[in-house]
């Protein structure tokens, strides 16, 4: 029923004995207490708020068991800024007013951070296509797209 895992989150390793059925997002939020990763759709895998990077790839942490991340490296929104210095993407979100309530923002940042690494000069169509897996009910996406464009040009 339980397994001892060692999961690295934002460079810090967490060795814990956890139930096999625990979802990765709950390990991140409740065991590692990194609550920047959000649960928007009650774990249905449709909202993207729980998007994290697993070994550098954006994935939804409610669609994985925590035990599956044993031995792997995870980056959450808390791991983007280094030494208090925001990334160009985070700064662009601030400058372009790309969030209102902010609930979806961590997932969008983790998705778009990886997206821009793979596609540093995206078109607007590519940005919008890249955002399909992240629901935002405040902004209408216009400012989010502007922010991602601005971050790409930095």
């Amino acid at each position, binding site marked *: *029923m339980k*397994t001892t895992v060692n999961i690295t989150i934002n460079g810090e390793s967490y060795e814990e004995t956890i*139930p*096999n*059925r625990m*979802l990765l997002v709950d390990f991140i939020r409740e065991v590692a207490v990194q609550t920047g990763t959000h649960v928007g759709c*009650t*774990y*249905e*895998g449709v909202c*993207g708020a729980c*998007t994290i990077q*697993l070994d550098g*790839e*954006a*994935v*939804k942490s409610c*669609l*994985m*068991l925590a*035990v*599956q991340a*044993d031995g792997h490296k995870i980056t959450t929104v808390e791991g983007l800024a280094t030494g208090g210095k925001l990334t160009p993407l985070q700064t662009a979100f601030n400058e372009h007013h790309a969030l209102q309530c902010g609930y979806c923002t961590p997932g969008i940042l983790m*998705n778009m951070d*990886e*997206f821009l690494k793979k596609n540093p000069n995206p078109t607007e169509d590519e940005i919008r*296509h*890249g955002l*399909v*897996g*992240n629901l935002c009910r405040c902004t209408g996406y216009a400012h989010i797209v502007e922010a991602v464009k601005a971050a790409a040009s930095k």
Partner: protein
Amino acid sequence: MYPAEIEDYVRPGTVAEALTALSKYEAGDSLMLAGGQSAMQAVKTRLLRPRCVIDLQAISELKGVSANGGALRIGPITPYAALAKEASFTGAFQAINDAAARVGDRQVRNRGTIGGSLCWNYVAACMPPVALALNMEMELTGPNGSRKVAADDFIHGPLETAREDDEILVSLNLAAAPANTGSAYKKWGLVTDALPVIGVAIMITTDSSGACTSARVAIGGLGDGPCRSKAGESAFQGVSANDSDGIAAALQAASDETETQSDMWADADYRKLLIRSLGADVAASAFARAAG
């Protein structure tokens, strides 16, 4: 939406280790997870309540695409993101690029796999009709050895396949296609990249003049599961890319033959219209790719 208790979790490094892990529980009590983008949904809603989860992610022999002459072998746990940009599909097998690039969203494509989708065989999925159109072969390994099954025999009704509970899908094989072969896939859903209300996959081989000598037409999004349209395939014979009446007639034959359902997403007649409308785009792409 939370999994029931899971007694065991194992992460084998080889297919042989995975078979050993499978044999520890009664058939059906273990769940093999590839990317888990569909299966974890079923685990969370408790449609599936596995006693043991066998995570296939560490089995490197199940990942990647390799070519042998014109034939291709696709590792079943190759994620969509890799398949979307795989260059060796260009032309004959390009329907896989089309489908993989539009499954779910970026996060799902980073993790979700072609083999997982084929084994799950959900009604609104892109890979099953693509496998049917491309005449893909599934290689299964179980306690009694290996066997190869054509997509036509592998894909059954919704959520059902020819795979037995104690078998692992170890390879997806594509035989070398004849010259002048092209394929394409397109779906329609209610929002961008949504689950297909209808998806159409077509593979076309032409002679040197551009006239179709053989076609495979497969349709997804159907209540009874994905299926081929033999009437549509016959009607494509002799048709060329610039013969819009011939293409329309072939797609009319396909939509007439296909039994469609009415549900909250679309009614049966609209699904038939989608088969014809998407089919025209798909056929145009397949012909263009066949011509190189």
